[in-house]
């Protein structure tokens, strides 16, 4: 099947491929996380996926300071610091993965390695039986999938050729043209709307609400979209904002909304990237979102807490 696809050797930057994903659409799924995102949400739990280029996370607690990564790197992207730990010049890194392999302690993890469409599909296809029996399939997520639109569409075509249910997780910040090319190949869009106020959204995440909503309108009438709201205390978790997002969903003819409770599981990654993590609050419990879910239901939406 794959050999017939002229794009099988097309390469993508991939953060990771995760089998047995349960939160990215129905049933048992494999989620392909693609590298690169146009937004920069400060709560992002996959911050290593934001740049288009490869990113290495460095886990200091595992690092013995042995210097093996420094000597292995052929691009001079790693220097041995005075503190005894490696320092990374992320502009020089080409993501070859040599340092990751050289490290005896699994202290380095590279995101954004290159994989071909056929390599990705080779993994995705292995759980076909599980998808079929559980009503699952493949989900493309990120980062933002539309940062690599050609690769995405090729992956969708390849998945459809295998008869798989396909889902996309997107923030909607993309061109209408690519969205419309992906739409017929996609069974489900998990579509993030993070705020109802365009200025706040622009300021905090770099997102363009107008464009996001216009794009969602293209999908809404097809009945394929679920709006997902990452509920972030201090950013959007207030009655007015959530109500505003519910209104946007209704305007776009979307009936289903998922409220995703804030969690801090990605916090460690910020330290590994030498970045500050903006939040100090605890992960939320599902029950805390119940009043918001009730509000949505009263507005005629079908609301679920958790993905």
């Amino acid at each position, binding site marked *: 099947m794959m050999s017939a696809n002229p794009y099988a050797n097309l390469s993508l930057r991939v953060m990771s491929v995760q089998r047995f994903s349960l939160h990215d659409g129905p049933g048992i799924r494999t989620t392909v996380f693609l590298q690169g995102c146009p937004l920069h949400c400060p709560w992002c739990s996959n911050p290593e996926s934001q740049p288009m280029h490869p990113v290495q996370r460095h886990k200091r607690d595992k690092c013995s300071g042995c210097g093996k990564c420094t000597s292995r790197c052929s691009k001079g992207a790693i220097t041995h610091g005075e503190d005894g730990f490696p320092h990374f010049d992320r502009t020089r890194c080409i993501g070859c993965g040599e340092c990751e392999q050289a490290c005896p302690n699994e202290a380095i993890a590279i995101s954004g390695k290159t994989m071909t469409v056929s390599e990705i599909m080779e993994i995705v296809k292995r759980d076909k039986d599980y998808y079929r029996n559980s009503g699952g399939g493949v989900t493309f997520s990120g980062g933002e999938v539309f940062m690599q639109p050609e690769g995405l569409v090729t992956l969708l075509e390849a998945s459809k050729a295998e008869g798989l249910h396909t889902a996309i997780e997107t923030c909607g910040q993309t061109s209408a043209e690519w969205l419309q090319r992906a739409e017929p190949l996609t069974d489900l869009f998990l579509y993030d709307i993070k705020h109802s106020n365009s200025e706040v959204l622009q300021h905090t995440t770099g997102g363009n609400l107008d464009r996001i909503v216009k794009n969602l309108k293209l999908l809404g009438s097809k009945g394929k979209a679920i709006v997902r709201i990452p509920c972030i205390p201090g950013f959007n978790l207030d009655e007015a904002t959530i109500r505003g997002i519910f209104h946007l969903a209704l305007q776009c003819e979307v009936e289903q909304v998922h409220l*995703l409770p804030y969690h801090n599981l990605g916090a460690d990654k910020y330290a590994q990237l030498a970045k500050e993590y903006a939040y100090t609050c605890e992960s939320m419990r599902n029950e805390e979102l119940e009043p918001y879910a009730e509000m949505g239901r009263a507005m005629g939406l079908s609301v679920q807490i958790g993905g």
Partner: protein
Amino acid sequence: MATFNIETAQNVEISKKIPCEKPLLEQLEIMERYTAVHREHLGASKEKREAACLQVLYPTLFRHIQEGDLIAGRLDFLPIGFGCVTSVGGVGHYCVFRKLKMFRAQLPELEHARVDAMYDYWRDHDLKTAYNKETLQEGILGMFIDTTYPMIATARLSGMMLDYPTLLSLGIGGMRKRITEKLTQDPNNEFLQAGLSCLDIFVSSARHLRADAAAQMANASAERIKDLEVIISSLEHIEEQAPETFHQALQLFWLYALLAGVINYGRLDDFLGPFLAKDLEEGRLSEEEAYRYVRSLWTLIENRRTTVNGRIIVGGRGRKYPKEADMFLHLAMRVAKECRYVEPQFTLRVDKDTSEQIWDEALDALGAGATYPTIYNDEVEVPAVAYGMRLDEKAAEQYVPFGCTEFVIQGQSSGTPNICINLLKILTIFMNGGIDPEDGVRKDGGVEIKPLSKYKSFEEFYDGYKRLLDFYLDLSAKAQYHSYEVMNSHVAFLFTSLLMDDCIERGKALLDGGIRYLGGTNETYGNINTSDSLVAIKELVFDKKKYTLDQLQQALLANFEGYEELRHDCLACDKYGNDLDSADSMANDLYEFVAKGVRDRGIAIGMQYFLIVISNNQLNTEWGLNTAASPDGRLRGMYMNPANNPQGGADKSGPTAMLNSLAKFDARYHAGSVQNIKFTPSMFNNHREIIKSLFKTYFERGGCHIMVTVVDSGVLEDAVEHPEKYPNLIVRVAGFSAVFVDLSPEIQQELLSRVLYDERKSLC
């Protein structure tokens, strides 16, 4: 002959035994009497000797019926006596020397000489010692459980599951009639004569227990009196007649199983279900009363504390009374969930017709942390058993797992695992020129092994290893077969033989040509460490040529100290359990070589079947302690992989990938392979439909079995630190469940190393 210490512990004993209720001096007298009777009968036939010896033990060794018991029958065991298996008493006419020494230490010094006299007598007459003397070979073949050897052997008759359907339909009187009729054709048949003595022992035991129950009536509460009356009436009934009620059937089954010394019980749903259904239908019994009886049976089985046995099997193909059987199944499912005992090992067979209700009940019990039921897939196992054991599918439908998973055909075959082989230790010996790096002892059995530098291709290297394996596999079949010869020369296993096809018909004890299918099993260990090691050798030495075999061997001998990068490279090679063709096909190739090798040798030597089991009790950890560092990156002394699961932590691609790897072995070549999986409660219980479809898909893809531990992350770690907080935390070890805090620290670490599947959240 090898030297061996007759006081070595011979079985896994995690659950603590209940001490004998008789005073020490009385115990001493019983053992003396037993010894004297045995001595007097040295010149008699084995059948007559056995019957006479059994009369010393029964009904004497019955304990008092305990308050709360709704079925009568608890037995004590002494360091000298008769049995089938190591975990209750010993094998044949046995003396457990280690326990006899402990017993001696409790006696006043005055009595020590009496014990010493017996000790000396049994040195020459203990069955297992006789086997060991004839069979063990220095450096090559050790006794159970001496982990300095690459292979160990024993004589025992584990896992017999009797033909209870026949017992329940004939009753003791009907059995007597059948034997007597055979005797009229063959009046001097000592097996049949001794068989009648056994039925007399059954009757005197039933009377003994009846008298005990009657004596307890005087001080019993009104409620307890009712229970005792039921016990008395059932015992009276089953002395002669076939059972009519559920309670009578339970009582007959249980008392016979005790006297036979068997510790696995078979398809209870199918042979007890019709009695239960009839009682319920005719209003003789309420469901709650039935629940109490079954729960009492669970307690009696738990109290025998065999650690790795106690199988009760429900469900699956080939049941005669599926509708009635399911009534028992539902009741048993509730009991298993609510009791949360480590035994019985409650086992569910499923097939394509298994109802959603049964699946849901099973997942509920597992989700509650019961570790039961452990689930077998008949769609794979039945045809596999048919091929492996050379039976038609109809006969194969009566397969039942015992112990840690070994299969037998209920009432028709033996399957005792009297051999265990450590494939990884043999690899470390092979790589070290035939000498075990652990103790410097030559263990090549005379097989020529070339220096490592002479191997020019991976195939040549692998072939060299296979030649050494061949030597051990040859020896394994001979040692297994010889265990039957030795046992047969000493004992008839009368009670067991009477309920195994076709002993009465042929007038022969089971190992004397009586049993329909003489089978056996061979437990293989370190399977995955070995295949992962072969993957690493192929990749690093022969494909990438990064190291030579000698360099690798130097690193192994140094336990990788000073070779950290080399070890890192070994660990980075593909590992089984990640659905990778490279590692999985190597594992499968080694599996098929060993499994077919064992099977072919068993057939050649004259057994119906001799099959490997990848079952694993805790020996993967214990044998690991005495196994050198290996090319898969495993350090010296580290636990080996459990059953045919990946080495703990080596599977990094999630449960579907692991299960895909597991499903790749062709089940036709083994007689049981167990597969562990561990989930957090939130993963398991909040995604029930997903879990169900995960298991069903795995089964559809050829998975043969699954056993599940549901435990929260951090709990096992905390239980290591604070055992006092977790007296009831049950985990699935491999082929058995155990209270976690009762396990040794090394075994606890092995369990911790296994991947725990939890919910992973993503939010971008």
